[in-house]
């Protein structure tokens, strides 16, 4: 498929000698939400951590194969510039503990050298607005980021990732620590975000995948079992393994 924003080609990754993913080739369409589902330990997180080259910061971790961003192999680009274009939101909300709400959102720009206060103000406003958090924090921008509620902290982390204006947003189980109301807010947000970004979301929750994703990939034991339009994958799975997993008859 041409027109994919990101693409992996026979991507394998290891932690030491243990293979986490094996020869995965998959496309991530531009302005679409692709969800990655599969049981714990199947390599979902490893796959997306290879896509922004965060996999390699773990000691003894390595990867083989290609990850293409607009046709360029990210492993031939500078890791820092790749991470600026491919943002990430983590499973557990992790605002910088010493920074205020404002400073958290501005961190990516500031620590890359932006000083202009007016531009920073604009970026913080835009990002918080996009992350659907502005109305809740506009009067407490100087409050510590960690003083927000769990769901707000996660949206703060999304705002922080959006502030550097990435092209792709990787989300690693962003709702797994949140209650249903906060989860619904994030899901609405993902729906809006795909207008501007290409979104990849790892999730344990199959209903969530069905709700937010245009495409879904099913991983099992480090291998890509099936990849299809979400509706097709859930309604007419081609593989028996996929069917077993999505219907909860596993093992």
């Amino acid at each position, binding site marked *: 498929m041409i027109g994919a924003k990101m693409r992996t080609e026979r991507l394998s990754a290891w932690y030491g000698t243990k293979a986490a993913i094996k020869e995965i080739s998959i496309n991530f369409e531009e302005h679409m939400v692709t969800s990655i589902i599969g049981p714990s330990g199947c390599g979902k997180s490893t796959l997306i951590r290879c896509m922004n080259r965060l996999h390699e910061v773990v000691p003894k971790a390595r990867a083989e194969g290609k990850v293409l961003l607009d046709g360029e192999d990210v492993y031939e680009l500078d890791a820092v*510039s790749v*991470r600026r274009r491919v*943002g990430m939101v983590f499973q557990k909300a992790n605002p910088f*503990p010493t920074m205020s709400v404002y400073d958290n959102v501005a961190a990516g720009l500031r*620590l890359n050298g932006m000083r202009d206060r007016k531009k920073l103000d604009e970026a913080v406003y835009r990002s918080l607005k996009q992350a659907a958090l502005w109305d809740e924090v506009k009067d407490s921008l100087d409050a510590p980021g960690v*003083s927000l509620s769990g769901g707000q902290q996660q949206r703060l982390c999304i705002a922080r990732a959006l502030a550097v204006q990435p092209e792709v947003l990787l989300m690693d189980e962003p709702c797994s620590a949140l209650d249903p109301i906060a989860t619904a807010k994030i899901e609405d947000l993902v729906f809006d975000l795909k207008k501007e970004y290409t979104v990849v979301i790892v999730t344990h929750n199959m209903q969530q995948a069905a709700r937010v994703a245009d495409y879904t990939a099913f991983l099992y034991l480090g291998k890509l079992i099936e990849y299809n339009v979400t509706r097709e994958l859930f309604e007419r799975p081609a593989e028996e393994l996929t069917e077993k997993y999505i219907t909860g008859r596993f093992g």
Partner: protein
Amino acid sequence: MKLPFALPKLKFNRNMRRRLTDRAMSLAALMCVVIALVPLGSILFEALVRGAGALRPTVFTLDTRDGGIGNAIQGTLILISLTSLVSLPVGILTGIYLSEFGKGRLGGGIRFFVDVMTQIPSIVVGIFAYSLILALAVLGVVSPRLAFSTTSGIIALSTIMIPVVARTAEEALRLVPNSTRESALALGIPEHRTILRVVLPTGGSGLITGALLALARVAGETAPLLLTAFGSGFGFQGLNQPIESLPHTIYTFALDSSTGLNQTAWGASLILVLIMLLISIASRVASRPRFASR
């Protein structure tokens, strides 16, 4: 309430025995606390009672040759500030290396080496600094008289302080969660800036606490100073001259046959304890987290 099944009959009252054991153990623990606190309390008490009497205003203005401790306080402050100036950057940078990069064999080796350094008896450190200067003097690099000087004192104290700062800095930075590092890297912030601007501030209070406690430790060192800074009856006279310090004053005055100087030694002890106390309080204040997290 009636249970739907019969409990087995006990030969003795188990609850009673548990309660007695609990009492006995709590009492034993309390006794141990008291035993541990007795020497501490008595030191503080003696230093306060005997020292406070000795601390007339003239004690602070006179130098040790005239029976005062003015130059000793000055000397201790000079020694610990200059030692910090040397040790804090070196120690903290070593700590950063150990925590952020020292994952391989080299890191392990350095960590072990630093650990050993923290255990070296301070008198041995004194001999090291002393013989280092003499070895340099033999080569003609420095004057042999530098062996007894502020400079050699700083070398000795830094040798003690650097490994302590390095280890506490490493521990403080290791407490910074990896997720904080990863989220900074994921924003496209280069690694060096992630460490300097995100990891260091996050571990900041721990860093300061460690630095202050290391400072308190060297402020009280006597043994290495006997062989290096040596002691002096006068105030600070230059980096290449001997310098007085509170521990040294306490040592010489306590050994003196004059009761007046013995009492002044108590006064100097009280001042030294107060300096330590101040440093400890400062480290407590520093270790309070800036933002309380939920």
